[in-house]
């Protein structure tokens, strides 16, 4: 049998047919007998004390189930990292849309008017809305002095770098909030029965996060809380931590009413009340030699966490670790902090801090190039990490990656040199200007540092009576093809046909805790554990004498059937073991931050229309080294989809804020690209393998989010000769800059040469 046949092939998607025929059941497609519908009364102000709650007389409140913080059996918080986020506001609110009360009724349609009829009176408190206001500490609204987390990464001697520098280049870069905009909004169904306990079904990425949160909230033991992931219509991180909140709400209503309760957010509520990407501000100060080498520098990376800590510390971590990107920093000091503002808490969104810090870095590299009069290509080539060198956290580069060659290939694929030259000529006249821009970057797969060890994920593979096997993981499928890919891996590991492998729906009653479906860890970390667990099945069958050293797929199935028939359950579990060479010091933030990195060079070609000041991406090359491509069609889809979101991040997706509340929370006025706005995105893979991933696969889910924005803004600068350092970059911003006819002040403050 051809052993490489399954992994690396675009096998038919296990979960595919139901989706294309409309038979896949998402949470709002599910109805339970006696089910009520739930809705949330939310704060209309950003910060204040609740003085009084009045229920409008026109509503027959006796028909409703009403839940407040007082009804919470366990702890009034959504347990995650810090436990500072209340499930329901109790006397005080810290952001617009903060949940205060829950209502349930049989008739879904009466809920909006009932919510309107609850009037909450506040004594408002002064609120803060920006990173600068938070740093100013006029008001302390959360965290410790408005700070949720600080991180310091130090390497080498930065002070000596300043002394040796020929140039010191500074820059400040900003990224805005971004809405995940999964087409299926958040939803959850909960049912409670005193004996069985609590069950929730819903749209989510991390069944065990929800499980833990509900245990805490309801004061229930692990075996009396059950979480089932249903078909999920897009997530992108937006359903990493938020589902715990909506599950908590549905659960409270279910417990109080004794009936199943369904809560589905409409688009306006989902956009206004749930998480978004952390806005960020990065300040670079870099010591550079005249031949274009980075000698050292400081990076000040600050994120806006919104009103409660939630995942801000982890987003900050990834952002800080990626802040130095794919380059060699002989010395660096990265000071990172996540601050509190009175906005709905910001949260996970594909990339998770890295798109923010990499935007800054890749823009900054082009600035450095400009100061030194080197090309953007050359500045990168001269500073790329090489095998044997160490990253900003002191991790030794083990991948035999040649980033210079990757860069060359991207240049060739994008026809960079020829285009740059022809654009420069063509831009002399006409009503539009063209430009081409690059971004080179990396993305670490798996949880940061000690995170994977902390998660201690467990994966199961089990033999079925009919001789097929079943994979047991809590990893959720929400478009990336989780089920397909893990079954490919299991089939390949066992020498079975792809058709002989099944996978359980993530249900905490059925599957072990293999951790959350985040951090680009599924194929690499979980896939590797699936391999191990599968090997465990093999070992058991061999040890029982039912299977020889070599065997056919049919022999395997027969052995399984026989084992299960005569000896009962055959289940192999594998638990994550941190590889010995992955050592991380959480105190000093030094060591091996990730087991593996994927690498990429992206090239964007743009046209800037000078009549409307709009930017169109005409061509996009996405070249990446990812270890091993397990399923080519799915992998290509991940890159294209991620690039599309990156293009949105760069050029279209602006959250309009007023007093901490999103004003443009509809699909009409929160602008994501349509099919008419995107170019054909050209995707190329390289595969170098990797010891830590299943069949050498590394992570790809988030990688494509990091490159597009800086590549595009670099291209716009190439086109216009004007620098933009904040995204989203809208036509209005381009117009304002051109109208000012401002040439950015020189970033270089040439250091004094030593006399």
């Amino acid at each position, binding site marked *: 049998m051809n052993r490489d046949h399954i992994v690396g092939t675009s096998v038919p998607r296990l979960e595919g047919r139901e989706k294309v025929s409309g038979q896949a059941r998402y949470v709002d497609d599910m109805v339970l007998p006696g089910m009520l519908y739930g809705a949330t009364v939310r704060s209309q102000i950003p910060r204040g004390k609740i003085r009084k709650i009045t229920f409008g007389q026109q509503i027959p409140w006796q028909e409703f189930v009403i839940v407040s913080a007082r009804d919470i059996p366990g702890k009034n918080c959504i347990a995650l990292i810090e436990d500072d986020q209340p499930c329901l506001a109790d006397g005080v609110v810290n952001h617009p849309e903060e949940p205060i009360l829950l209502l349930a009724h049989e*008739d879904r*349609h*009466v809920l*909006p*008017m009932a919510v309107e009829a609850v009037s909450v009176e506040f004594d408002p408190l002064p609120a803060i809305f920006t990173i600068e206001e938070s740093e100013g500490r006029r008001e302390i609204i959360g965290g410790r002095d408005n700070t949720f987390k600080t991180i310091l990464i130090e390497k080498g001697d930065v002070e000596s770098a300043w002394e040796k520098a020929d140039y010191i280049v500074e820059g400040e870069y900003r990224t805005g909030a971004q809405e995940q905009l999964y087409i299926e909004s958040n939803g959850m169904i909960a049912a409670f029965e005193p004996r069985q306990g609590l069950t929730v079904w819903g749209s989510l990425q991390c069944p065990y996060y929800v499980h833990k949160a509900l245990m805490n909230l309801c004061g229930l033991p692990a075996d009396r809380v059950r979480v089932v992931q249903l078909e999920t219509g897009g997530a992108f991180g937006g359903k990493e931590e938020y589902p715990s909140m909506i599950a908590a709400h549905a659960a409270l209503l279910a417990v109080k009413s004794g009936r199943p309760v369904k809560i589905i957010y*409409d688009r*306006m509520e989902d956009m206004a009340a749930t998480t978004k990407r952390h806005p960020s501000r990065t300040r670079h100060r870099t010591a550079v030699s005249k031949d274009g080498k980075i000698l050292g520098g400081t990076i000040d990376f600050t994120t806006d966490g919104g009103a409660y800590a939630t995942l801000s510390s982890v987003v900050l971590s990834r952002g800080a670790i990626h802040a130095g990107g794919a380059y060699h920093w002989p010395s660096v000091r990265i000071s990172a902090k996540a601050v509190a503002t009175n906005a709905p808490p910001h949260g996970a969104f594909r990339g998770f801090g890295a798109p923010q810090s990499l935007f800054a870095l890749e823009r900054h590299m082009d600035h450095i190039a400009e100061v030194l009069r080197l090309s953007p290509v050359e500045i990168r080539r001269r500073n790329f990490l090489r095998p044997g060198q160490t990253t900003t956290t002191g991790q030794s580069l083990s991948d035999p990656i040649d980033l210079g060659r990757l860069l060359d290939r991207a240049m060739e694929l994008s026809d960079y040199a020829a285009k740059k030259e022809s654009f420069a000529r063509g831009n002399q006249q006409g*009503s539009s200007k063209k430009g081409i821009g690059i971004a080179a970057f990396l993305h670490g797969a798996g949880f940061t540092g000690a995170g994977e060890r902390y998660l201690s994920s467990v994966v199961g593979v089990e033999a079925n009576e009919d001789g097929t096997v079943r994979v047991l993981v809590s990893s959720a499928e929400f478009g990336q093809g989780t089920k397909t890919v893990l079954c490919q891996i299991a089939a390949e590991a066992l020498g079975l046909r792809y058709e002989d492998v099944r996978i359980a729906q993530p249900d905490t009653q059925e599957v072990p805790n293999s951790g959350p479906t985040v951090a680009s860890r599924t194929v690499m970390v979980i896939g590797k554990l699936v391999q191990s667990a599968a090997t465990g099945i093999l070992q058991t069958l061999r040890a029982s004498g039912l299977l020889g050293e070599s065997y056919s797929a049919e022999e395997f199935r027969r052995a399984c059937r026989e084992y299960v028939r005569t000896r009962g359950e055959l289940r192999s579990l594998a638990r994550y073991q941190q590889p010995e060479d992955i050592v991380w010091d959480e105190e000093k933030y030094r060591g091996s931050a990730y087991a593996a990195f994927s690498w990429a060079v992206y090239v964007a070609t743009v046209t800037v229309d*000078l*009549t*409307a*000041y*709009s930017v169109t991406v005409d061509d996009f090359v996405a070249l990446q080294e990812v270890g091993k491509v397990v399923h080519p069609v799915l992998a290509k889809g991940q890159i294209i989809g991620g690039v599309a979101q990156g293009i949105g991040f760069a050029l*279209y997706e602006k959250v*309009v804020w007023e007093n901490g509340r999103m*004003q*443009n929370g509809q699909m*009409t*006025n929160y*602008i994501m*690209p*349509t*099919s*008419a*706005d995107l170019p054909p995105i050209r995707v190329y893979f390289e595969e170098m393998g990797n010891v830590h991933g299943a069949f050498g696969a590394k992570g790809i889910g988030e990688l494509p989010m990091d490159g597009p924005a800086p590549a595009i803004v670099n291209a716009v600068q190439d086109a216009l000769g004007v620098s933009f350092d904040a995204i989203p970059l809208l*036509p*209005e911003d381009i*117009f*304002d800059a051109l*109208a000012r006819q401002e040439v950015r002040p020189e970033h270089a403050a040439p250091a004094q040469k030593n006399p």
Partner: protein
Amino acid sequence: MRAHPANYELIAPGDYRAVLSLLANEPGMWLPIAGGTDLMVQYAAGKLPRRKLVSIWNLPELRRIEIFPSEIQIGAGCTYTELRTHDMVNREFTLLSRAAGWTGGIANQNRGTIGGNIVNASPAADSLPALLVYDAELILASARGERRVPYVSFHLDYRKTQLAPDELVRSVCLPRRFSGYYAHARKVGARKAQAIAKVCLAALGRLGHGTVEDIRLAMGSVAPVPLRLVETEGSLKGKRINAALVRFASQTAAREIRPIDDIRSTARYRARVAGNLVAEFLEALGAGGTRE
């Protein structure tokens, strides 16, 4: 969905005269709904101003496109798809068929109607500037009879029109005298499809003996109502198109309009882009566009 369907009454008499009688007997009580692409969005947001609706979808009297020697009468109930695909509208009123193709996606073009666009009276509507440059007239119908009004005076203020509480727009009449004109239109939105206009221009021009014989410019999203740029037109009539005139005209246009800052864009951006759109049109016209 923030409205309770039980709170709304919708009837569909299926008969044009019956609808007019209803509007006459209970003026201001019944909100006519055609394709619903505007009203149903308001409804779902819980923001529909009235609780009683009467369907005028698919009434034959409102769906006809009638061709006369001097004008074409387009039923107010014609959909954007019908306008996009109608032979004569494409040939002689290309600005209207083009604008119809900009509005929403295909599914919304199949339901949205020109009458709905007019009565909804959003200053951002894509089709309305085209009606202004084509000197459209509206036939307004009621149980009392019909009256014809020049479209240019139909919009009184932001979302306020001349339409009486018992009236429907029956037809849009377009005079057939623009075949010899150079026609140009452009919409600037936040993205290439399904975008509400930040600025849009519909323009017609005719050169004679090297000078501007006639010029018609109308814009959306630059004032509380769709706007005919009369002052800018006046500055161009009889003149020869050159770089200085183009610059002057685009500055005049930027001053003539009254754009605002809103959730979609800024007044200063709209003003500049409006000027740019006028310049773009004039340059094309001057470069020898006698007919598009």
